[in-house]
């Protein structure tokens, strides 16, 4: 049995090595909500679903299973904040639990690379669905100290909801989980054209052909620009990186003039729960450095005795 209200925090690559503010925010939020967050020592890249699975599916499963084993040894479900890591770990976890033949193959190789053994005892969770369903807008309402008054362009990304038959979270054609959650924080999701398309970074495309990646992204930025949101909200550090570096690229190469701050859900929630804006880390990002979250302080009513 996994420990209750405890998560093994899977860091991945982009969050710890490029956007540590997201790491800080997530820890802040989860601990304030009463969860115990454990370090996953010796974790590696998940490995990235579009890249490594494209090279060798078995080794991708083995490396992913190795990360799962670390959490199994901690007896805790995995928490991740990245669509890519979620895509890899949730799918491998589910697949090996259901496919005996592949589980044997993977365990055979796991022995070779460090004596690990996959048992299938834990589940993999994404912070967006932990907050959206488990905590829920009703659960967060009492915990926030600041309520914003902002309009955000919400980007779900791809691997959080799809493939729906594996993730089983909600419909990928009309999702509402994040938007319903942030409403309580005072953030209105503003609809833009072709809202659910890919950011263009995944599948190894950003490394393979940066130009194509930017073409896809450029179209998305154009649609977002039409509605002039206060900031862009994402739930994946790779999308986060794409929105950041992408706006920069488009400004430098395509005569654009974008400066939308890019915020990960963890950063937003942490701020609303009382974390100082300087830890949100906008000063380390490329876009929207001057953006001030603001929002009104919520006075907590005195409890009558």
């Amino acid at each position, binding site marked *: 049995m996994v420990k209750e209200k405890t998560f093994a925090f899977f860091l991945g690559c982009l969050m710890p090595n490029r956007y540590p503010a997201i790491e800080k925010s997530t820890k802040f939020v989860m601990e304030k909500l009463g969860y115990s967050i454990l370090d996953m020592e010796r974790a590696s890249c998940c490995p990235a679903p579009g890249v490594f699975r494209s090279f060798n599916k078995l080794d991708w499963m083995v490396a992913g299973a190795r990360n799962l084993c670390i959490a199994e040894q901690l007896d805790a479900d995995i928490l991740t904040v990245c669509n890519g890591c979620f895509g890899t770990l949730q799918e491998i976890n589910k697949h090996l639990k259901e496919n005996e033949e592949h589980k044997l193959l993977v365990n055979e190789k796991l022995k070779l690379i460090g004596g690990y053994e996959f048992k299938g005892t834990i589940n993999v969770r994404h912070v967006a669905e932990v907050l959206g369903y488990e905590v829920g807008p009703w659960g967060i309402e009492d915990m926030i100290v600041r309520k914003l008054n902002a309009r955000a362009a919400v980007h779900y990304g791809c691997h959080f909801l799809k493939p729906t038959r594996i993730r089983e979270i909600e419909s990928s*054609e009309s999702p509402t989980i994040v938007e319903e959650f942030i409403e309580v924080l005072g953030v209105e999701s503003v609809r833009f054209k072709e809202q659910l398309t890919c950011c263009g970074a995944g599948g190894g495309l950003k490394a393979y052909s940066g130009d194509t990646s930017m073409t896809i992204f450029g179209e998305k930025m154009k649609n977002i620009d*039409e509605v002039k949101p206060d900031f862009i909200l994402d739930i994946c550090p790779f999308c986060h990186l794409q929105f950041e570096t992408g706006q920069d690229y488009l400004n430098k190469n395509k005569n654009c003039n974008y400066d939308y701050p890019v915020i990960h859900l963890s950063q937003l929630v942490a701020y609303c729960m009382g974390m100082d804006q300087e830890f949100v880390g906008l000063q380390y990002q490329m876009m929207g450095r001057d953006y001030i979250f603001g929002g009104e302080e919520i006075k907590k009513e005195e409890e009558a005795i």
Partner: protein
Amino acid sequence: MTVKEEKIKDVEKVDKDTASEKSEEPRIGVFVCHCGHNIAGTVDVAEVAEYAKTLPNVVKAEHYMFMCSKPGVQMVKDSIKELGVNRTVVASCSKNQHGKTFARAIEEVGLNKHRHQQVNVREYCSWVHQKEKNKATQKAKQLVEAGVNRTRKLEDVETQKISTTKAALVIGAGIAGLRAANDLAELGIPVYLIEKESTIGGHMTRLNKTFPTLECPQCSISPLTNGVANHPLIELYTNAQVKEIEGSMGNFEIEIEIKPRYVKDNCTSCGECAAHCPVEVPSEWDMGMSMRNAIYKAYPQAIPATYVRDKKNCIECNTCINICPVQAVDFSMQPETKKFKVGSIVVAAGYDEYDPTEIEPYHYGQDGYEDVITQLKLERMLSPTSLTNSEVLRPSDGKIPKNVVMIQCVGSRNDQVGNPYCTGVCCKYAIKNARIVKEMYPDTNVTICYIDIRTPGLNFEELYKSAQEVGVRFIRGRPSEIVKDPISGELRVIVEDTLSQTPLQLKADLVVLSAAMVPPEGIGPLGSKLHVLRSKEGFLKEFHIKMNPTLSSKGGIFLAGTIQGPKDISETVAHAGSAAALAAAPLVKGYIEKEMLVPAIDYELCVNCGLCKTVCAPAAIDIDENGVPSVNEVACKSCGMCMPVCPTAAIQLINFRDDQLLDEIIAVSGGGAICE
């Protein structure tokens, strides 16, 4: 009008007088056929006959060149007449091939035809073991011995003549039900025609034009609807559904429930009530394309012409009661039940159009996507009596569309959503409608997005060509989604033109989805009441897809029209005619002859577990309030499924009892012993 039921004298036995009425010593005659070289070329038939002579109770064993020939058959008959043979075994070809030949033969000389056992030593032996003559002969001997063992305990099976009730029930008054009711009535059979809606005519009356001739369906069907409404032998009940069905083929007891119309029969159809009714709701008959009042007639030419009140939406302001010039409105009317007896039931309950709400990328039914409609809605707009005056208008703003895009295979041919089958009529009606729209509005672009164009049958390829000739654009590609620009509100259909490998974004101010035909709502409870099987797609299952598409899995119940599967009007009418003919046969003859090849229950062994009833597909086993089972011999289909599930072997099918089968098995396995 009361229905006169003619009854024939009750059950008569049709067996000829037989000497085998008393239980007596078995005297078995065995005849082994050469079948030319077919059997004799591999099996030593003489040896087999010799072996048969050695078996207990065998008084005659012969072999002959062609048993099925006249002299061969005569040989069998002679043995009965001369030697008192009272059970016969013919070892030759299969039961399907000549089993009946010999059964009929022995019946002619006074034996019950179930005293014959056919042993197949051709398909089961000589033909498949041609290279191993010795082993084949040994096998033939074992097969013959098994046959002899089997015949030893064969009993007479009587054929009962059951008189039938000369009346029929037709469920559903769409084109299928109307055709079936009419055909039955023309044969002199009184028909009870029930329809769950308040008007008859079904989907056909809602169409604008029928393919391929582009005729007006209301005109085509009008002689039939009027004929049926006025036929002296047809009793029509609208707003009615089946409540309970008991009995079996030839004699069903039906109870129907008639929902109150709240308007009496003296209604003159003047329409004053509707004109003054303050309530407006979307009209179901008009596929939501217009409004109706809480007291209404579905459409001007509706039959019956009596108005009907929708109690759920009525606010009971009583305006209609007061304004009716003949005081026909009566809120106190109650549901009625009616009981009657019929001999056959024809199920013609129709279909429903698939609801594309499930296919999310097409956004059907969502706010802001009112201009995404289905083909039936388009038919309603084009219809002569439509709210739009037969114009095609966008539901959102009432303007004539400049770009109409039709999407095929919505809810059909899909393993992920909807159904895996191809409905088979959508290509035809989409092309029909596309051509009509294009000819009405030559400046409007009309596009059909398809995966395949399926237009088999006379005049349909021609229809396809004619649509292309007037400029309907055909794009081979299945659209992945319909997108809407949040600022301009413009719709675009995203599709790949696979023939030129070009991804496209088509402008579309009206999108028409060609939705599948699916089983109608309420088919589950109806099927349960009828005790008929359903196909895996949810329609009612036919007895045999090739040889008997209008008989259901239960005797006496026939299927007409789309209730059995998607089809167009021509196919439906032919299907309904076949159902009517089959339904009429036992009623016109006056009786059903049924072989009583049914199970018997040993009540001392029976533990009242009820398992036999659960596996009986034609629902031929009834369980009373004490849990005691009894067999409905008319409904029984002799399948024998009740036997293996019975934990105490209390139920045994005549001539297929456990001990009889065991005798056969012992011989086939080489045991050689006889069971007592």
